């Protein structure tokens, strides 16, 4: 006699976690039908490979559980096998929308561990490129939030501006995108006056273009209807969940690491910190647009004040010497050989240094035991921590609001998954 095959329903751990999630929304529905939907890793609106499991009642979200790890490349284990210099190209690929900012953050952490400082011209140029990276990242945010909500024209316009920025990065560092421009103790090479002129021209034209994009969005009642009041989070919840960056400043908390714990030359520059109340998607949008305008101000000031000088510190045992010296002098050749083979040898100890990246607080925790490779390198990525608040933000919202919330949080999976 034939036996019917058994149907085995495999309950994965993540499904159990979804069922254990606290459902705080009650609904008077005679049908009372729950459905579990998978907004999978491949999705046009999830900004990369983010998987969301949502429990729905019709179109309303009751509970949700995000799943990461689809882009886990093993950075922290890689760092234990690379020397400090070799890790710089890897930091480009963390937050791949603003690679120059990550380079600066990592190099500042290593310089704090070594106890050396880059010369003033290098500090000013690092500030310049950090702010240009911030403008590039926020333009991408503008384009993708508008595209997710339905306004495709703004995406095309912001990409046109980003192409001009890519040309500038190519002139500064040699690559459009993954630049690896900073070095321990300074920069890879200097910036020519002609490049500074091109930057000045770009910055003078940018406010007009931003105004055009804002004209399309700020008073558009379709855009406001989709974004206003959606995905709100309170101030206490935001601090408890560890949000940083524009998402925290949109909840009314004034925290910006450029002002709170100043690094590079932010002490000498004059800029404001935009803070909005509300904690919803519209507030996050306003904060980022205001930040673009502040960054324009900072870049103009840096272009005025930039001093002449060299871009590499004079510390032969720690800083890679320039190639023209390596090819002609004996001392520099020996130092280059030792540094490339054995790495910079820092004293034993640990540091944690954080900068204000465009997405939030990007921190590097380095524990070194005296060898040329770090014993432990931890990357505190802002997108990882910001994504934790998604399940709080989309409770009680509809499916199309999830798209707007993820777009306004602006996560980058390259750094969330490390």
């Amino acid at each position, binding site marked *: 006699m034939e036996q019917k095959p058994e149907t085995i329903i495999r309950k*994965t*751990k*993540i499904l159990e*976690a979804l069922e*254990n999630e606290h459902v705080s929304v009650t609904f008077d529905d005679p049908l009372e039908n729950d459905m579990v939907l998978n907004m999978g890793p491949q999705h046009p609106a999830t900004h990369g490979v983010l998987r969301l499991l949502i429990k729905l009642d019709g179109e309303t979200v009751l509970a949700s559980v995000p799943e*990461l*790890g689809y882009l*886990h490349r*093993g950075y*922290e*284990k*890689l760092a234990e*096998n690379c020397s400090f210099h070799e890790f710089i190209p890897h930091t480009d690929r963390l937050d791949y929308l603003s690679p120059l900012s990550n380079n600066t953050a990592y190099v500042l952490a290593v310089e*704090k*561990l070594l*106890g050396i400082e880059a010369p003033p011209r290098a500090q000013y140029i690092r500030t310049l490129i950090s702010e240009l990276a911030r403008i590039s990242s926020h333009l991408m945010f503008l384009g993708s939030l508008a595209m997710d909500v339905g306004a495709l024209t703004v995406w095309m316009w912001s990409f046109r501006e980003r192409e001009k920025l890519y040309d500038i990065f190519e002139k500064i560092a040699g690559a459009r995108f993954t630049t690896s421009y900073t070095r321990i103790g300074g920069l890879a090479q200097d910036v020519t006056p002609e490049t500074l002129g091109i930057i000045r021209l770009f910055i003078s034209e940018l406010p007009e273009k931003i105004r055009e994009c804002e004209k399309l969005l700020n008073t558009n009642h379709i855009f406001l209807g989709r974004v206003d009041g959606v995905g709100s989070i309170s101030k206490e*919840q935001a*601090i*408890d*969940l*560890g949000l*940083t960056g524009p998402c925290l400043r949109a909840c009314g*908390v004034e*925290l910006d690491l450029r002002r*709170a*714990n100043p690094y590079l030359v932010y002490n000498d520059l004059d800029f404001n910190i935009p803070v909005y109340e509300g904690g919803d998607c519209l507030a996050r949008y306003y904060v980022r647009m205001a930040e673009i305008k502040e960054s324009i101000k900072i870049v103009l000031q840096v272009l005025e004040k930039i001093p002449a000088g060299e871009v590499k510190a004079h510390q032969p045992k720690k800083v890679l010497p320039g190639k023209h010296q390596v090819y002609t002098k004996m001392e520099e050749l020996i130092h280059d050989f030792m540094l490339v083979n054995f790495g910079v040898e820092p004293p034993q*100890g*640990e*540091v*944690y240094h*954080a900068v204000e990246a465009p997405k939030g*607080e990007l*921190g590097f*925790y380095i*524990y070194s035991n005296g060898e040329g490779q770090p*014993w*432990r390198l*931890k990357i*505190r990525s802002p997108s*990882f*921590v910001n994504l*934790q608040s998604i399940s709080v933000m989309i409770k009680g919202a509809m499916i199309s609001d999830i798209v707007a919330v993820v777009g306004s949080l602006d996560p980058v999976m390259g750094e969330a*998954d*490390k």
Partner: protein
Amino acid sequence: MDVMNEKVLEKLKAKLSDAVLEANEFRGELTIIVPKERIVEVCRFLKEDEELAFDLLADLCGIDMYTPENRFGVIYNLYSLKTKHRIRLKTFTEEEHPRVPTVTGVWGTANWHERETYDMFGIIFEGHPDLRRMYMPDEFEYHPLRKDFPLMGIPGSLDLPKK
């Protein structure tokens, strides 16, 4: 020692003197080593104290010291919104059954950080509401960031779809 660091250390020693095993300062940053049974108390005191107010847990990570006793450590990087100051707490646990009490009750952000530490090192956090793996698939049997796990992985530990 830095003025703010001294104040933190003084207040902590005054309130919970036996919870401070060791304290040192490197490049202006204070590191306090705490025994693992007292970690929740220390964290709660540092968060709720009026003057210190360390209300943002910036980072929580694990570390594998590869020593025979006290092999695994957990490191807490704290930040205060009021005084804009940073300190670091460290606790250690042993190799056989690494267990540390969870601080999810003090800061909600520790949830995902502790899950990631469990995934990478195998340290079990007692009292955690939802301890699952974060990055690797659920069926993965090893803990990648331990020093005895090779960088290139163990062949056969993860399977690929067929061509």
